[in-house]
């Protein structure tokens, strides 16, 4: 439990440390990057589906 709360504290400190990004991205860039991530994860999801189908 102590280790878990230590981890949470560590994550909070990291988020605070890097709260101000050095490279300012425009809103469009952020949307495109997020969209790319979601798209790629969708493709990975399809591959995992195919993997499961192949095993069956």
């Amino acid at each position: 439990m102590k280790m878990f709360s230590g981890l949470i504290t560590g994550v909070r400190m990291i988020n605070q440390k890097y709260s101000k990004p050095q490279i300012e991205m425009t809103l469009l860039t952020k949307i495109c990057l997020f969209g790319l991530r979601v798209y790629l994860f969708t493709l990975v999801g399809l591959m995992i589906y195919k993997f499961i189908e192949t095993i069956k």
Partner: protein
Amino acid sequence: MYFLYKLFHQFRKTSKAFRMFLAIAGPGIIVMVADNDAGGITTYTVTGAKYGFHLLWFLIILGPVAYFVQEMTVRLGAVTKRGHAEAIFHAFGSFWGWFSLLDLVFTDWLTMITEFIGMTAAMSIFGIPPWITIIGCWLMMGTMITTGRYWTWEKIALIFCLVNLIYIPAAFMVHPSVSDIIYNSFIPHLPPGGFTNDLFFLLMANVGTTIAPWMIFFQQSTVVDKGLKEKDIRFGKVDTAFGSFLTVIVAVFLIIVCGKLLLGVPVESAAEATIKIMPTNNYIGTMFAIGLFDAGFLGAICISLASSWAFGEVFGWAHSLNNKIKEAPWFYAYYFFDLLLAGVVVMIPKAPLVLITLFVQVIATTLLPAALVFLILLLNDKKTMGNYRNTLFENVTNIGIVFAIIVMSTLYGVSTIFPHLFQ
């Protein structure tokens, strides 16, 4: 007399540059040769057995592709003195940083499993049970990382890189047709049967085994841990170029062996290929098994370090191989945890290990554009990179690589939903 003096002076200058290069060389060679990991050996084996020499041209194209991607990490590491994970957090903030870090952890864990699959399969050929191989590997890797410093680790890793070249003499031993090799290496064409789902899957797997997210994180962290400076960048580039040459050479020679000995033979893995080769070519079969174990081991020691470095950078732990265990406990703890988690999966009864190996390569390819986009953005930031920013040619090349991978991944995704589209 003046001519002799000039010749002697040039010789001293060149030899000094060569000695400098030998001192700097390491990260590029190791990351590229480790790129031919157990998953890579399996992918090339299946490629050679299924399509003979017909895809050699594709492998040769992947060499420069790997160079252009990895060379960026040399510049970024030498200029920023930060590992890739820390560089993303610093430049883009914690949201994108966590995304990238979790991406890395996921793909690294999957790839680590494939390394243990390769090592256990290779040792099984010699009658060694998987659990002994896994425990033995844990001990070897643990000893390697906890004794000595970065330089020690690097030199041992380079020895394993040398062993990885074992497929080169094997290819000469099978006496392949040189004219066939030359034709298939330099004339892009589709193999007999045309463009099918199977071909597509293997092309994706080949891309995924040549450029992987862990390589970006690994090479940048080694550049930092080794202490490379901006003045060392040109040697780092040569190191990377030489490494990419080696990775292509090993892949090509391995495909030549399989294309010559196993064409048309149904083969699902490198271990299966070794078993089929052994009865008629005992020496080549043994070289195959040694090469497969070496590939898995080399991949495992690099990938686990990539993750440990990344976590250490982000969480602010001491995270250098130059630190002893007491000085960097979390760094080493994560390293051993990673090894343990991957090894345990391999011991699950009836796990579809071969299928996992190939699918992991494809998944790694699919997630690669996300890592590459951040790398390109970082390399274009004037404040971060100064005079070492990407040139127009580098941007066009790398953006082209990102675009090509996205297109390939999309088409593969489409083929998953509509399986008859490419048949």
